[in-house]
């Protein structure tokens, strides 16, 4: 359902979409069934002259069945949903597959800044590439991110990746993503962070290996020159 609106551009996007659809069909069934019974009862037992209401306490076992059986079935559906929900969560948030590369993401009022390893492939060295409001990554490469916030709580969200993680001042939060589709996608801040919250967007550019290498080559020289490294190991 989500993929009608947005590309599924990360390795785990399909898993979230699948879980969403599964829940949609399960709860959709219960919803339609309940509403159908509900409206039918209103119609069927509307007030008619000379017909009195029936006296039903609902305390007898034979009557309670009408509640306890659906109750059990709802619980069963809950268990099914739980299994998929936790599995999805486990893959995306709890487990950390080994990284091809690590990037640093910093949120502050009201911009995102990014630090990528330069040609040496290591983060925190002098040749790191720093960008603001634009993150360039390579397709089919597994990235770890180290997410920080300078001032208030922000939230790093890439809808096309189905990725969201709050950035908490005072903490470095590690997570991962793996882009599987090239293109340019939105980065949002999804936690209200002051008057500039509505403009705190950035762009995520997923490139082919060739494009990405060219981009690195182009930016590593200028970036080293521009940013002498006082805050590189901050």
């Amino acid at each position, binding site marked *: 359902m989500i993929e009608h609106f947005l590309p599924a551009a990360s390795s785990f996007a399909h898993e979230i979409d699948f879980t969403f659809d599964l829940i949609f069909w399960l709860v959709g069934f*219960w919803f339609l069934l309940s509403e159908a019974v509900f409206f039918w009862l209103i119609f069927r037992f*509307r007030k008619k002259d000379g017909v009195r209401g029936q006296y039903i306490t609902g305390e007898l076992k034979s009557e309670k069945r009408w509640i306890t059986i659906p*109750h059990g079935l709802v619980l069963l559906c809950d268990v099914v949903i739980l299994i998929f929900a*936790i599995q999805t969560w486990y893959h995306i948030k709890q487990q950390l597959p080994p990284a091809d590369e690590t990037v640093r993401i910093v949120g502050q009022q009201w911009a995102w800044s990014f630090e990528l390893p330069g040609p040496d492939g290591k983060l925190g060295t002098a040749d790191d590439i720093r960008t603001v409001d634009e993150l360039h990554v390579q397709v089919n490469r597994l990235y770890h991110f180290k997410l920080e916030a300078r001032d*208030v709580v922000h939230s790093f969200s890439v809808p096309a990746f189905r990725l969201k993680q709050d950035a908490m001042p*005072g903490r470095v939060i590690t997570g991962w993503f793996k882009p599987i589709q090239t293109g340019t996608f939105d980065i949002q801040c999804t*936690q209200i962070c002051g008057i500039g919250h509505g*403009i705190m967007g950035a762009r995520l550019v997923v490139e082919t290996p060739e494009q990405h290498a060219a981009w690195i080559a182009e930016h590593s020289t200028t970036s080293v020159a521009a940013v002498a490294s006082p805050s590189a190991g901050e």
Partner: protein
Amino acid sequence: MAQSHPAPSHAPHEAHGHHEEMSFWSKYVFSTDHKMIAMQYMVTGMAMGMVAAFFSYVFRMEMAFPNREIPFWGLVTPAQYNALITNHGAIMVFWVAMPVLIAAFGNFLIPLMLGADDMVFPKINRLSYQVFLLSALVLISSWFVPGGGFGGAWTMYPPLSAHSAYSLTPMGSTLFVTAVALEFVAFLLGGINFVTTAMNSRAPGMKMYDVPIVVWFIVIASIMFMASVGPLIAGAIMLLFDQTIGTAFFDPNRGGDPLLWQHLFWFFGHPEVYVVLLPAMGIVADVMATFARKKLFAYKTILYTAFATGVLSFTVWAHHQFVAGIDPRMANIFTVTTLLISVPIAEMCFVYIATLYGGSISLTTPMLWALSFVGEFLIGGVTGIFLGSSGTDIYLHDTYFVLAHFHYTFFPIAIIGTFAGFTYWFPKMSGKMLNETLGKIHFWGTIIPFNGIFLPLFVTGIAGDQRRIYDHNNFPELATPLLQHLREFATISLVVMLLFQVFFFVNVFWSLWKGKKAERNPWKANTLEWVADSPPPHGNFREMPTVYRGPYEYSAPGRTEDYWPQNVPN
């Protein structure tokens, strides 16, 4: 023999002799009468509701037609936008749902339905309203100080709320937190009163299982409120100290932790949802039983599901924080508890639906509201599953899907529940009947646009539309024509819905002025409030009632009448 009230020839012991004329001040302002305090809460709550509705009009217009002059407001600046959404949320929860559903209906109904002459602590009751009024005034004043009102969302997450350098509202944020803390004090005072009254002031013969569901639910809600609000009052004071005297409870640079606030807030914030849900569901139960002429299906089951919901609701709070930076393993526990809470809530809905079976349903205005509560709340209930499941919440967190979901729970609670109760008990409160035609126009004019507002927002949420953005043009994926049309549709629906509220006010004022006089028991209902005069005098009952049976003995076999009031011996 099946008359609803004992012969009134008994020495009319007219309310403790309080028959003398009271001055305006002692009758309307410093009253200790539970019914007058209920009216004070109702009027204040509805007035605040109109303010919050106006706020929603302004920011919805901004979202549909960004950067244009909005009629009755002008251009919306980002700071104003944030303050509007923040105060809309806070007002609707703390200054509308709480005062109207818990305080107004609780105050009005608990003594009347229990057959008591008043609350057990009338002066604490008066104090409760006074503190509440003060909290509302503090909140209103926060919009007019330099820097403007607080704009960090009703959840007040620090460090944004703690430092004026981040929020740019030095006085607004302090007044906001103060107002919220005062509001909690008011409801602690009220809660003590409700619980004590229900325990001690029941009419002779009224056993615990003879208490109407709405009273039970307000009492359970009060207990839940009192048990959950403590941590947040402490948190609010810590936040005030951080703002004003430079402590660092939530400041990570000096050893504090911003995440602590989120735990304190949601430990209260989630039970709070059920605190306002239960009174609304109680109102719906009573209205449905009356107009379906049916005994409530499995009264005890309803009570037990409410207890279960109450207990479980204390264990689910971190589902608001799945992606907040908590230990990811913790999310699994809270996913389990959150999905578990869907079971008693679903069961409650099933019981309500089952109550309709075998009824003789008349679709009066109160009944339409009550039924629409069930129909709409189901949407809010099932969409909660998407968000309680940690896996899908990664994507849906803080999108319009969340917003649409909780408006499908909160709108039925705060608006539909209120109108159900208001139209049902209006004859008792005022002594006049409301006009049914105007009532039905108002009902349909509210319900249809309500769905027009929030159904499209589910779609924008699924498409990745995030909350609290004043202009979506800054995000290419959100600036598509489809999403913008959906936003416009939602906004137009809102305007239509707000316009239809005119019918409500016309109906109320016209009925008060020229409406048909209400008899004692116009709906032929069983519970004790219908034994009292309409409106009940100070002291409520001409003769204190005695209770012989449960509240929902409708259509009992072997009786000529299809109702059997609680106070009639046989």
